[in-house]
Structures are given as C-alpha cells and as structure tokens.
C-alpha cells in the first residue's frame, strides 16, 4: 500500500509530491517507482517534494536529485518543517518555498489523465522556459511568449498574444483547434501535424487554426464565425 503514502498534486510550474510517514529510504524508492510507472506524466517535470518533518541531510537530497535527473526530472524544491532539511536544501541550491496554489482542474487531471474534458485556466504571462502540459484544454488569459510551450490533449485558447510553441490534440485529436487574439506561434502542432506561422503583415486579428485536409490552416475569426 505504498501508493497511499505518496500524494501527487499539480501546482503552479510543477508537480508536488507529498511523502507521508515512513522511513525515508523506503519512501524514496516508492516515489521513484511511482515515477517510473507514470513516466509520460513526470518526464521533463519540475518536481517539488514535501518531506514533512523529516530531518534530511544534503547527501539524502542530493541522491534524490540525482536519481530524478537520471529520469529527466528536475528537483526544484524540497519543502519541510524541519530546519535541518531546509538548510540542506538551500545548500544544494534548491528552493524551500513554492507557490502551491493551482487551478483545481490540474489536480483532477491526474485522475482523468486520458479524458480531456477538463480545462486548465491560466491568468498570467507564460514566459520562455514555462511549459504547460495538460490532458484537457488549456485556456490562457495573457500572453504566451517565445520559448514557452503549451501542450494540450484538447484545444488551446490564448486570450492574448501567442508567440510560443503550441501543440493541440497532442494525444491524436485531429479536431483540436488553437485560437488566439494574435496567432503567431513559433510553431504550431495539431495532432501529428507540425507547421510554422507565415510572416504576418498588418494589425493582429483574432484567428483560429485547425486541420484542413491534413494541413494546419489559420483563419480569421470573424470569417470563421460567419460560416
């Protein structure tokens, strides 16, 4: 029953793993095992580990960090109520405080990994280096800057300027669409089709992109709605 001792949550910019009671070495193994079983979900993630009141030393944390980086996962922060652990985290250059708030749907998404009915809503600027991966839809109220990535199982809507990389229908949905007030992504992918934005002239207009005859095609929103 190891799984119940570990709780996984989506938080802003990362994934939070809460490691409940139990011997650390055993729990560390359980965490890694859990990750190995859900590779696709964790790969490339920024991980925050809440170790509760355990007093862990730098070598403990370093070994966890190394094990995670072998799996392409970055250990970002270690949360703890123990001063010893906090000190050790800081020594390794890990954060000891993170914003744990997160739109609720993200948490559900873990349980409904393949459904794609849920949407995550982000009211912020997504900057270079930010990556949002969600099995459902992604709605952003803000800009998506170059170097940021959105990957959604469903549709992607950006109420702002879209200049980063977007992938809608990432699990094969060819009906997925991408809409934005200013659709100029570095790269746009829908299902398995990849395309780059043509150079734009004139003022930005809201557009919608979707697959037409196997090609990613963008259309003016105002014309689209008249059809």
């Amino acid at each position, binding site marked *: 029953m190891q799984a119940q001792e570990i709780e996984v949550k989506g938080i*802003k*910019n990362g994934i939070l793993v809460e490691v409940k009671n139990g011997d650390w070495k055993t729990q560390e193994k359980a965490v890694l095992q859990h990750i190995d079983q859900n590779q696709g979900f964790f790969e490339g993630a920024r991980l925050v580990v809440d170790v509760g009141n355990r007093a862990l030393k730098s070598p403990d944390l370093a070994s966890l960090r190394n094990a995670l980086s072998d799996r392409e996962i970055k250990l970002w922060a270690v949360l703890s109520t123990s001063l010893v652990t906090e*000190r050790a985290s*800081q*020594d390794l*250059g890990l*954060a000891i*405080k*993170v*914003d744990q708030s997160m739109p609720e749907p993200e948490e559900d998404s873990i349980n409904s990994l393949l459904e794609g009915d849920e949407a995550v809503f982000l009211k912020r*600027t997504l*900057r*270079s*280096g*930010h990556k949002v991966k969600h099995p459902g839809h992604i709605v952003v109220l803000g*800009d998506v*800057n*170059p*170097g940021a990535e959105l990957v959604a199982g469903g549709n992607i809507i950006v109420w702002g300027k879209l*200049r980063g990389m977007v992938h809608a229908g990432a699990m094969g949905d060819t009906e997925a669409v991408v809409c934005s007030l200013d659709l100029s992504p570095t790269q746009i992918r829908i299902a398995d089709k990849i395309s780059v934005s043509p150079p734009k002239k004139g003022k930005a207009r809201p557009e919608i992109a979707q697959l037409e005859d196997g090609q990613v095609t963008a259309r003016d929103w105002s014309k689209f709605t008249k059809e």
Partner: protein
Amino acid sequence: MSAKVLTITSGKGGVGKTTATANIGAALAKRGQKVACIDADIGLRNLDVVMGLENRIVYDLVDAVEGRCRLNQAMIKDKYIPGLYLIPSAQTRDKTAVSPSDMIRLCNELRSDLDWILIDSPAGIERGFKNAIAPADEVLVITNPEVSAVRDADRIIGIVEAEEKGSPRLLLNRLNPEMVKQNNMLSADDVVDLLAIHLLGIIPEDKAVLISTNKGTPIALNEKSLAGQAYRNIAQRLLGEDVPLLDLDKGSGFFNRISSVFGSGEK
C-alpha cells in the same frame, strides 16, 4: 539603516550587468547613499575592473564567506565617491565556493550600516545566478534590444517570479533610437510589450560608456554623457523620485548629430 538588496541580472551575457551595477552604485552613492556592490561572478570577476579598483583587492567575497577575513576587510572603498564600496569576487574559485544561504547571511550582516547592496549576477541560470538572487529584495533585469537577449530576460523573469521575489523591474541597455526609427532595432515598446514588467530606465547606446568602463571611471559621473544622465535618473527612480524617461530623440541633440554623420556617408 537597513539596506535594500538589489540584484542585477540578465540571463544572457554581455548585455551590461557589470556596467549597470557599477554605474547605479556610483549614481546612488553620489546622492549620499551608502552603497556596497558585490561581484557574485566568482571565477570571472570584473566589477573591480569596471570600478577601477582591481589593484586594491586584498580579500574577496569567498574569503569573507569562508572566514579568512572580517566582512569589512573585504569591502574596498571607491576612489572617487565616498560611501561606495566594492566586495570583489574571487578569481581563483568557482560558483560552488558560495551557497545561496551564504549570500543571504552575508547580506544580512551588511544590511545594518548600508542603504543599498547591489549584486552583480553572473550570466546563466545556474548556481551563480541562484546565489545572486537568493538575498535579493528586488531584482533588476537588464536586456538589450536584441531578440536573443530579450528571450533570455523573459526566462529570467519567469524564474524570479517562480522564486517569489516579486515582479522584477527592467533596464533596457544600449538602445539606438536612430536604428529603432529605421525599423532595424526592437523599440522600447516592443521589449516592454513582450516582457510585460515595469521599465525602470533606458540607457542609450553611447561609445563613452565603453571608454569609461575601460578606464574604470563610471559614466554616471560624466555630466555630459546622455548615458550618464540615464544612470543618474535610474538612481533617482530607485530612491522613489518620479523622473520621466529621457527623450532620446530630441534630448541633447546628440543622436541627431550622429544621424547626420551617417546620413551624409550613405548617399
């Protein structure tokens, strides 16, 4: 007194972090503030060169952290401006010689008898950068009007926000109004539009900056230079005064002169 810790960082190298640190430090000290500039670029130090204090270094940041000297022994007095100090970095060590908690401890020790602690961050997003932002009360992100520099600045802003340091402010360095006019350079509006943070100041491209950094005399002390004026204005804004951005087009006529020279050469 309780000093405010301001970290100057950029992501990309060569955009002017060190120059900005030296000049903002000089401009603040000139206004009667007590300022320490810390070079956090361990292994690749150059704030000492830009401030012209290279030959006065006895102890450095790593000596202070490792207890080989008292903190005030590592503080070098500036040769021009009273109230300005430099804590140089070590040239023979690397970034791992200091940890983020060392930097926090060091700054806390310094806080009580200073007004400002300016930290010159190394380029990159690794350990050295983490060291530099750990003690920061505020972060100043510096960029050039160049696509690659702006991209890195955006990444840095994202990291700073994630570390819950509040929204950083922006310093746009080496803007050439003439090139902007000809649509050959990103404008201040383009950059601010993308990065969406508060613009603290714009430093115009000015050859005099390079000359002054080579000589080790801050441009901020040069009354004739437009870039120097821009740095002095930034210091005032940091002190909470409301100073409008320089009008780089008309301002001093400096750029108009330059453009007429270019104009005649083109034909």
